[in-house]
């Protein structure tokens, strides 16, 4: 069975470490916040100028002046700090955020990512994504392994305009967990019940299996 959106988020949450500053993109990445292990603390950065995103507000707490980068109303966590967009991206560009999780349309075996633009459709803009992928040491991409027509999103070369080059190091899809290094996707884990053959078939880029041939199942 492929993972659902929440299960992908759960698997990503296993990558969190105590004391991490984390930026979560819109969509599946946002769900990661719901699965932070109980024994660790992370602080969530919102690129519009908030370090320490708290829970969504109650109706009484709703405040137009307190939103996240997805323009949703939020609260500030205890210990939060608030700052300008320039300061926020100084943090991001300067590599101070420990982990960035974001979605993508395509990723290729060189760690290139395309996530902001589908020519011919409306271009909504990259927002902070280009800064995030250029600034982070540690980037995890979440997406479905293939599109709804079954076409792989893990490619030799991205076809769409790039958001960043040589930056993605790990991918968590509905089918697998993979690392990107030395110009190839390295299969680390597979979704429960999903065969290595299916992953191979849905990975257009070069896929390298573990030397011992054993691919453990994702545990979520």
């Amino acid at each position, binding site marked *: 069975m492929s993972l659902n959106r929440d299960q992908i988020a759960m698997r990503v949450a296993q990558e969190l470490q105590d004391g991490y500053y984390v930026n979560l993109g819109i969509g599946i990445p946002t769900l990661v916040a719901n699965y932070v292990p109980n024994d660790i603390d992370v602080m969530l950065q919102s690129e519009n100028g908030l370090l320490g995103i708290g829970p969504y507000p109650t109706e009484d707490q709703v405040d137009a002046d307190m939103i996240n980068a997805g323009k949703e109303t939020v609260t500030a966590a205890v210990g939060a700090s608030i700052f300008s967009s*320039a300061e926020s991206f100084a943090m991001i560009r300067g590599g101070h955020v420990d982990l960035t999780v974001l979605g993508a349309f395509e990723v290729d075996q060189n760690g290139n990512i395309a996530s902001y633009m589908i020519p011919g459709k409306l271009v909504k803009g*990259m927002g902070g994504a280009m800064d995030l992928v*250029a600034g982070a040491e540690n980037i995890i991409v979440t997406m479905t392994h293939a599109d709804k027509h079954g076409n792989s999103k893990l490619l030799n070369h991205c076809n769409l305009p790039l958001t960043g080059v040589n930056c993605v190091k790990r991918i968590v899809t509905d089918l697998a967990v993979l690392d990107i290094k030395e110009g190839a996707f390295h299969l680390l884990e597979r979704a429960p019940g999903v065969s290595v053959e299916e992953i191979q078939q849905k990975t257009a880029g070069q896929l390298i299996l573990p030397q011992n041939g054993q691919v453990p199942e994702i545990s979520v």
Partner: protein
Amino acid sequence: MRGFNKVVSSYQEAMAGLSDNMTIIAGGFGLCGIPEGLIKEIENIGAKGLTVVSNNCGIDNFGLGILLKDKQIKKMVSSYVGENAEFERQYLSGELEVELTPQGTLAEKMRAGGAGIPAFYTATGVGTPVAEGKEVKQFNGRDYILEESVTGDFAIVKAWKADKIGNLIYRDTAMNFNPMAATAGKVTVAEVEEIVEVGELDPNHIHTPGIYVNRIIQGSFEKRIEKITLAKN
């Protein structure tokens, strides 16, 4: 402090001097922390051919979106321009020029503009469409692109409190792009929720020193929210 009293009593005074083909730098992120009344005054003035530098372009009937509707904007410099059907129509028909700029680069371009830095290098956008036509240079083995700063004929910002000499304090995430925008205008106009006497603000808590601000107007704000998201019980 007569010479430092920057408070004006009408929106006409606040935006006096705005004319066709000018560049306006605007604070705000989505609809959060936008100078609502100053934008409406630009609509009233009816200046055309404007270049607007702002992270977003409002929505169809609120914020900077109202200037799109009136076709007052020739060019937008923004990082994200969704949530706006009229924008989409004008962009696809070629009526509107759009310079998509990564959000952090946009913030830094405004800051650099105000700080007398004509250009800076960043890794953001290397190898992407953003890098087209830009100088690439290596530092410590990594490629960076050269980005030039922006300044405006006007900067329009929204603050929480101002004293009469233009010291500004923002509130929560309504700060966003406002502090950088405030530094980058030949004329910087701040629309604020409250004007206090000089001396009431703690010098250590001021976000934008008054030196950057030319005019202050007391606004009244609707503060529309794009996505009300609530805690689950």
